[in-house]
């Protein structure tokens, strides 16, 4: 039972269950409190291939899946209670607790040291790991949604902007902070608990057509409909990640949507970027001649290597200069530079051309834009690889971290003072202490707003507003992407940071969105602000981008492999390349992520039993736990209504009966705590 829950909660089963992940975990952890059933000695390094130990971000998940796939033993530890590290997606409520955790994290670091000291054998060296996540900084949260109780939400948004925020309750902040447009919410006060009551009352589902005012309470109540990613990335449809998903059959664990449009902000106006043939044909803002120029240039970019004479003179000069030398109007230069190539002023010509080429090659594979977005958020992707890893015997363990490495590295000591032997250690950059870091950071934040016209997933590129500010990349997700509740949009803005996230992004936000001066305030009718989407909630933070760091700059044992966190680029190629190169170091002779076999092609040893959990039998045995009888699988639940009613225990009773793809995958839960 406990195992099942753990598995379901953790390894990302079907993306549809995403919304329940957080709660499941907490239920499980509660049940498990104080039960110490797992013992390190279950691993016998003398007999077994010693496990690789990892922490899951995208890179780590891929490495784990790849190792596990070729028969390596993998133990996956994470000090957090969620998967995927900085790649994670949260429900709104999950995000709020994440924020809380972040606020109070820098305390408990001391005491346990003595506990594990005694596990160290004579003469062994110890390397202590960082236990505090320092990759996130400058976290700030603002709430603009009306804080009136939910019962009053019937007020139409169109009704004239009366000051209808409710009377001051215990969460009301100082409202008259006028010199600033926004004002900060003390995060701790707006914890879900205060608003919890109305949540459980049966409420009619909001009719999407009716413009209802969205209150903060409503957001919290519908919090599970949100899947807010910490990083905002898209998948290039011919990028390495998509290729890997296909090659390894991991794609079967996730669903994707094609991005529906690519926009850019130019002269204060949002315009569609014509990037495909159909776009150029249909574009209203380009003249005929511009259409020809653009198509001509793009056609050239598709096989620019064949025409070196066209760009040789500029090979040492920036792409921007090259664009200006071509017969392109200013309009077109802008489109190509900031929305198609998506490069910066320093990028050299050839790199810019290559970026353009990559973009163009991705067009048409799945639709008229080159990008895919995973339903339920980007956090799905690491989870899919985790699942793959688990299918082939990987073991996962949350809220469980490593304090130190022993002796180059023969073993690690976890936060419970246990010693775990291992042959390799793959570790996220954030665990490494005392190393050089913080080369560049990128900031990002989420807003949601409502009342936007269409159900689209869009990428908007906003060029620098002035010379000192960074170019901002904005991804707008509608509820069709399963990342936010109907009637709202989730918007991610990302840029390389100059100052703090708020300093960098506030100008863009105020330009493109209506930011109420007090929660719940409406834009005055008729003013231009009225056209803008209304902001409900904003979170700013900076995340460290360590991707530029050279692995050799870490003074670490050779069998410790450092994975950097998410990088700032839009695609995922960096992480995949890194994963593959780490895998090559670990296992030079093995294939990287060969296709997972179809269930019908798997030969089961003990034919009589034919358990679906065959793949796990070994792992289970090694752990001294019985996997038998735990192969029940989760029945796909229709997300919305059932969420409320079905308790984890109840929903997990369903027997193995339907034959979806997922159901044929062994799902024995390796459980640890």
């Amino acid at each position, binding site marked *: 039972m406990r195992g099942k829950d753990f598995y379901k909660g953790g390894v990302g089963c079907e993306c549809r269950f995403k919304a329940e992940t957080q709660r499941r975990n907490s239920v499980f952890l509660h049940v498990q409190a104080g039960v110490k059933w797992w013992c390190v000695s279950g691993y016998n390094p003398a007999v077994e*291939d010693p496990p690789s130990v990892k922490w899951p971000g995208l890179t780590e998940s891929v490495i784990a899946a790849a190792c596990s796939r*070729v*028969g*390596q*033993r993998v133990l996956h530890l994470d000090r957090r209670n969620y998967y995927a590290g900085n790649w994670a997606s949260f429900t709104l409520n999950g995000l709020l607790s994440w924020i809380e955790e972040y606020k109070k994290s820098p305390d408990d670091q001391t005491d346990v040291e003595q506990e594990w000291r005694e596990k160290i054998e004579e003469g062994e060296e110890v390397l202590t790991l960082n236990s505090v996540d320092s990759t996130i900084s400058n976290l700030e949260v603002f709430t603009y949604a009306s804080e009136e109780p939910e019962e009053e939400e019937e007020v139409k948004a169109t009704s004239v902007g009366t000051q209808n925020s409710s009377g001051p309750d215990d969460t009301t902040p100082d409202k008259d902070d006028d010199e600033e447009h926004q004002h900060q919410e003390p995060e701790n006060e707006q914890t879900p608990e205060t608003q919890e009551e109305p949540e459980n009352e049966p409420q009619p589902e909001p009719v999407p057509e009716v413009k209802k005012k969205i209150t903060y309470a409503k957001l919290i109540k519908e919090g599970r409909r949100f899947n807010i990613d910490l990083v905002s990335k898209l998948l290039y449809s011919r990028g390495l990640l998509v290729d890997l998903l296909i090659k390894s059959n991991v794609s079967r664990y996730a669903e994707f949507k094609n991005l529906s449009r690519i926009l850019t902000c130019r002269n204060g106006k949002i315009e569609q970027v014509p990037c495909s*043939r*159909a776009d*150029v*044909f*249909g574009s209203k803002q380009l003249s*005929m*001649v511009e*259409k*020809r*120029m653009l*198509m*001509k240039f793009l056609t050239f970019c598709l096989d620019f290597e064949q025409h070196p004479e066209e760009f040789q003179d500029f090979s040492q000069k920036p792409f921007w200069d090259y664009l200006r030398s071509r017969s392109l109007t200013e309009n077109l230069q802008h489109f190509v530079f900031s929305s198609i190539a998506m490069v910066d002023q320093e990028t050299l010509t050839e790199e810019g051309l290559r970026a353009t080429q990559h973009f163009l090659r991705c067009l048409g594979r799945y639709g*008229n834009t080159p990008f895919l977005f995973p339903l339920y958020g980007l956090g799905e992707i690491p989870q899919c690889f985790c699942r793959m890893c688990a299918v*082939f*015997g990987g073991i996962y363990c949350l809220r469980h971290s490593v304090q130190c490495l022993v002796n180059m590295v023969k073993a690690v000591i976890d936060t419970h003072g246990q010693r775990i032997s291992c042959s390799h250690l793959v570790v996220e950059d954030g665990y490494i202490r005392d190393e050089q870091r913080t080369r560049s950071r990128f900031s990002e934040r989420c807003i949601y707003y409502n009342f936007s016209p269409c159900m689209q997933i869009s990428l908007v590129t906003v060029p620098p507003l002035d010379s000192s500010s960074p170019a901002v990349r904005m991804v707008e997700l509608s509820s069709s992407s399963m990342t936010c509740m109907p009637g709202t949009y989730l918007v991610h803005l990302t840029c390389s940071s100059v100052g703090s996230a708020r300093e960098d992004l506030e100008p863009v936000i105020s330009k493109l969105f209506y930011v109420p001066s007090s929660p719940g305030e409406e834009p005055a009718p008729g003013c231009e602000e009225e056209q803008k989407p209304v902001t409900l909630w904003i979170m700013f933070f900076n995340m460290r981008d360590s991707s530029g760091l050279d692995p050799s700059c870490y003074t670490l044992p050779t069998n410790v492999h450092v994975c950097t966190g998410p990088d700032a680029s839009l695609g995922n190629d960096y992480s995949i390349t890194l994963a593959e190169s780490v895998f090559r170091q670990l296992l030079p002779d093995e294939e990287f992520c060969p296709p997972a*076999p179809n269930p019908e*092609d*798997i*030969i089961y*040893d003990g034919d009589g039993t034919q358990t679906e959990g*065959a*793949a796990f039998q*070994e*792992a289970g045995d090694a752990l001294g736990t019985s996997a038998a009888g735990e192969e029940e699988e989760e029945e796909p639940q229709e997300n919305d209504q059932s969420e409320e009613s079905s308790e984890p225990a109840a929903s997990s009773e369903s027997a193995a009966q339907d034959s979806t793809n997922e159901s044929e995958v062994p799902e024995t839960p390796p459980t640890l705590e």
Partner: protein
Amino acid sequence: MHGRVKVKSTAQQEEEKRKGREKKLKVYLTVRDAIFSKRSNGELDEEALQFTQQLLCSNPDFATLWNYRREILLHLETVKEEDEIQKLYEAELFFIETCLKMNPKSYGSWHHRGWVSSRLPRPDWTRELSLCDRCLSLDDRNFHCWDYRRLVVKASGVPVDQELQFTDRLIGSNFSNYSSWHYRSTLLPLLHPEPGSEPASPCRKQNNTHTSPTASPQTHSHRVCEEQLLKEYELVQNAFFTDPNDQSAWFYYRWLLGRAEREELISCVYVSREGERVAVAFSKPVNALTEGLMLVLDGQQQQRVEWRSAHPRFRHSPVWLCELPPGSVSDINNEHNLTVHWMEKHTHRDCALYTGRPESWCRDSATDQELFRSELSVEKTSVLQSELQSCTQLLELEPQNKWCLLTIVLLMRALDPLGHEKETLAHFQTLKEVDPMRSSYYSDLCSKFMIENTILKMEYAEVRVFSLSDKNLSTLCHLDQLLLVTHINLSSNQLVRFPPQFSMLQCLEVLEADDNAIGNLEGLYHLPKLEEVSLKNNRILYATKQSCSIPAASQIMCNYFHFLLVIYFYCVALHASC
């Protein structure tokens, strides 16, 4: 290697697949035989339906089975209630969908679907339309689906404007689609007919297009009002500016620019006292023997004249001849009035042969008819002018684009064939260079235009001398326009032969064709008035074995049966044998 999932080897998988296939084949053959025996026994039962369904699912292109199914269904129709029939046919539609998934371009399946839809007691056209849309979203050039869709639209009476929006949508997602463009060209005249021309009948929606041929040849209902045309020009220009190498847009563009059909009329009547013959030229090739051609001479219908085409090989010809009764016009002091009636087209042409004249004619000149502009003639000059500007703009960006070049040439011809002659020639030169695969086509087209220009010049000068030397002609055309020409000079071109149409030059007396590459004299046999032929420096390799009477044989300075590269072939007078 422990810890790994064991997977079947490729060989194992192959073996399994092979076995599976063998088994399938066995079943297939058994069922097929069973069906054939049932059919020959005349069994039209549901079991047969089941069997054929089984086979067609895996092979939807088995036409015999579809036929058998129809036989069965027709039979079941007679014995079942309407509700049952409805159910039966609905199941059939569902089944066809699975066949279409197997092969979306199966002739048999689509045809059967059309048949079933027409038999269905209560058809659900909305569903059929959405099926078509789904298919077209997967492959927007599946013409089977287009065909079927037209059938559905016709049957269900979808409004024309909705259909136009539909083509908008398809063209928007991919303009490289002949079907969509073509569909537009049929919808526009219905939705935006040119004012003045006969409006499309409102009942079109029900019985759709092409049911009633337009009553009069003068009104062509497939014209579109100007306002809409301008929008179309913009749309299609967007397409060819985006991708000038995509020919679907260019084709549509040419349709937009020129949809003139030449009026059907008698363009010329010629009568000669000496030969006692009449030659009639039509605006297009006709078969005078079936079209009801009637000759009236001085008020008397000539019953017994025999019409023959200019060349015995042509059953359809733009030029027809007939001998008048001997002595009927030979007296030079008599005046005669001639009328040729073209009964079928309700048109006629008069010709008066005055006293003292050896011959007479009455005609519309090519200039009057704006003959050589007809390809792109209907548009207003201003529109054509601005289109020419757009294309020239595109050419500046894409100097090598053949479609653009060709369209420019056509526009120039429509605007001012003589004024643009020099530019036209230059463009043809470029065309031959950028598209060498079609250089002969361009040469022929250029020849055609040169001949047209010369005809125009000749008419302006009001002479019967046609001189076209040194123009790189590769072919001869428009010879029906040269009915009255007496002298023709074709020297220094690249002609390789005289086409049979050359016999239309019924008045030709002198032919000069030196310095060509003419290989034989075919084409010159049916010219009644020919007196002088000069064929210096040609490539006459053999003369035809067909004997023809050459009375003035003494004048022949050539050797028929030699392998000659250079021939002095001077003054061959040929008398038409007829």
